[in-house]
């Protein structure tokens, strides 16, 4: 059985049951997430970096794909909400012994886990887990295949709002491997939902989806044109294996056409900011001078990631709590 994104992610009162994709969520929910995160930014600066919102809850980090940054910030976020955190590096254990995803899920549910934070190499994996999870168990997508990485997109929105105040009127350019990027897909949905005036994607045709315009973007092949007068530049990581398989000829040509240099950056708005979901390939997608320069907000993205993830975890656990209470009554 398939449910629309909206039906799967929201309860009747439009509260988050799971957080799987930006697709189907409206501006008020995204704004609520950003506002909630705003309230959590202070927690990290206190001496006691904890709030008791999720005390007694068990959050499982279910990572079928390697990750350092995302897993760590999720872990910190859950711990600052006073939840107990299980870190499961599944790629190294169960699946290599032939256990199915469903069996892994059932086993963890038997341990009374309240939330799964899932990263998986296959598009749709987080949906699959949400569709099969017990009622009362929330699922957060920490990246599935090429499909979605909605918490990354929300921390990027948070970063943009902190620097620009409003979304209306902004021009944003996303540069690089759009085709394989779950980050780009989620960012495009979030930016359009929050009402920016233009989202541009800049890439050679081999790194673009077949019908990129249908995602709601303007397509540029020339970076010099695509960067003109933009307020926000989001650089995507280029996976080195794209050099094989006839996607790109060389890193050298890629950098000369799509690398972000100080010369190119000067064509954007004077107060433009530079973002990157990390980890950066210096000299491939971005010059070190730009990455470490005054317009770069890359490290702030990482810090904001904790507040955003606290907001989403607490919202989902809150809704699931209500759901189990309703069932109990």
């Amino acid at each position: 059985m398939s449910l629309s994104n909206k039906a799967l992610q929201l309860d009747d009162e439009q509260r988050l049951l799971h957080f799987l994709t930006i697709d189907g969520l409206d501006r008020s929910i995204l704004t609520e997430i950003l506002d909630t995160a705003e309230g959590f930014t202070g927690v990290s600066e206190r001496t006691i970096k904890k709030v008791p919102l999720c005390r007694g809850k068990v959050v499982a980090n279910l990572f079928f794909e390697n990750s350092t940054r995302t897993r760590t910030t999720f872990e910190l976020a859950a711990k600052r909400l006073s939840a107990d955190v299980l870190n499961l590096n599944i790629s190294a254990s169960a699946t290599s012994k032939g256990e199915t995803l469903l069996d892994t899920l059932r086993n963890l549910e038997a341990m009374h886990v309240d939330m799964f934070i899932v990263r998986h190499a296959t598009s749709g994996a987080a949906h699959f887990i949400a569709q099969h999870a017990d009622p009362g168990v929330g699922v957060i997508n920490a990246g599935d295949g090429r499909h979605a990485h909605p918490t990354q997109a929300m921390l990027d929105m948070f970063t943009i709002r902190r620097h620009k105040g409003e979304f209306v009127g902004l021009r944003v350019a996303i540069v690089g491997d759009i085709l394989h990027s779950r980050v780009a897909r989620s960012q495009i949905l979030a930016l359009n939902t929050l009402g920016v005036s233009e989202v541009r994607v800049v890439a050679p045709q081999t790194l673009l989806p077949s019908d990129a315009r249908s995602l709601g973007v303007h397509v540029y092949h020339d970076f010099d044109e695509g960067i003109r007068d933009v307020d926000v530049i989001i650089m995507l990581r280029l996976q080195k294996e794209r050099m094989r398989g006839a996607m790109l000829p060389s890193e050298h040509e890629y950098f000369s056409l799509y690398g972000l240099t100080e010369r190119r950056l000067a064509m954007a708005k004077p107060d433009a900011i530079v973002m990157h979901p990390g980890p950066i390939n210096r000299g491939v997608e971005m010059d070190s001078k730009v990455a470490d320069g005054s317009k770069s907000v890359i490290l702030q993205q990482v810090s904001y990631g904790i507040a955003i993830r606290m907001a989403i975890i607490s919202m989902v656990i809150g809704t699931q709590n209500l759901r189990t209470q309703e069932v109990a009554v």
Partner: protein
Amino acid sequence: MKKKKKDITIRNGRVVDPGNGIDEVTDLHLSGGKVLALGQPPENFQPLLEIDATDQIVCPGLIDLNVNLREPGNEHKATIASETACAARNGITTLCCTPDTLPVIDTPAVVGQIRHKARKAGYCRLLPQGALTKNLDGSHLSEMAALKAAGCIAVSNCYTPLANTLVQRRAMEYASTFNLLTIIRPEDRHLCNNGCAHEGKVADRLGLPGIPEAAETVAVARDLALAETTGAVIHFHALSSGSAARTMAWAKREGRKVSADVAIHQLHLTELDLEGFDSNRHVRPPLRTDSDRDGLRKAVAENVIQAICSDHQPHEADAKSSPFPDTEPGISGLDTLLPLTLKLVEQGVMDLSSAIARLTCGPADILGLPLGRLTPGYAADICIYDPNRQWHVSAEQIHSAGKNTPFTGWEMPGRVTHTLLKGRLVFHEERL
């Protein structure tokens, strides 16, 4: 010793026999397992059984050109017995099964085993397709003369690509030596690139690796050129794109010796149905756009595509219990073949006679077999259904061992009440 087949009269049904241009309310008389006469019975004809078909449709038994019955080798998914019984319940009297079993249908022994099991079950005529290459390896030709002698009605390499265009050419040439039809699933494996959905706006948004339309059109163009060179008769199975359908229309105008079928689900579902990642909609070739579906419908209505098949791929629940791209492709289609085709009539895509033709004389003519018509002397393979009965698809209503249908909850027109195979009642509905 064989029992003498009963003489039967099917009374007062609306007989739809598109192969003979017949559509009238009349009686149909069967004798000795064969069609005897329509209308007035011969003198002294004394039927032992009479079936009242008032307000029902009486048509030739349906022929499904492409089904995978999973036996031998994957009996946990389905068996010849389970699926032929399911076919009988659904008015299907002839099944052509694909050679991608374990072991592959590439020796007379496997052909014999399959035919024996089907005969033993006794529900349905089973016509195996032989493998085009040994073990479907794509390089070494199978012993096609022996396969034909053992009862194969065509040869195919299924999903497995041939090593190169030279092997493709040689295989077609060798098959044509024995007047064996070559069935091709047109698919360029390089362009497929491990995709699992139509390359387009939905796959773009869902982040599903795409299969471009060109994966099909390139293969169709290549194989049409090879067929022209070799003079071989070829059949394209399971077209999915409007563009390939238009190429077929052109080939037909040119008088090429080529035919095509389409899987019934391609005439109803599109890429938009992939929202929500329902793995029961994971099929190969993938569901494409609205305009592809409309192009395929047009080609079926105009008889450019002469046959509709189920492309039956029964699966156990586990095969579909994973994230979408990791699941096995395919739909369990026998139970919905006739109703979904009748739905096309309801929707005004074509008239009833054309719809029945695509399930009877259309596939029979592709195979060059004397089936699919109620011509006197032909085998008395008959499907009788009640066109006024509506039903809802649910797991309990699916009689195949594979419950993997994307049509759960759909309202379906038409319920089969009787199926006869060579004049023998292999299914009749128990009335309460």
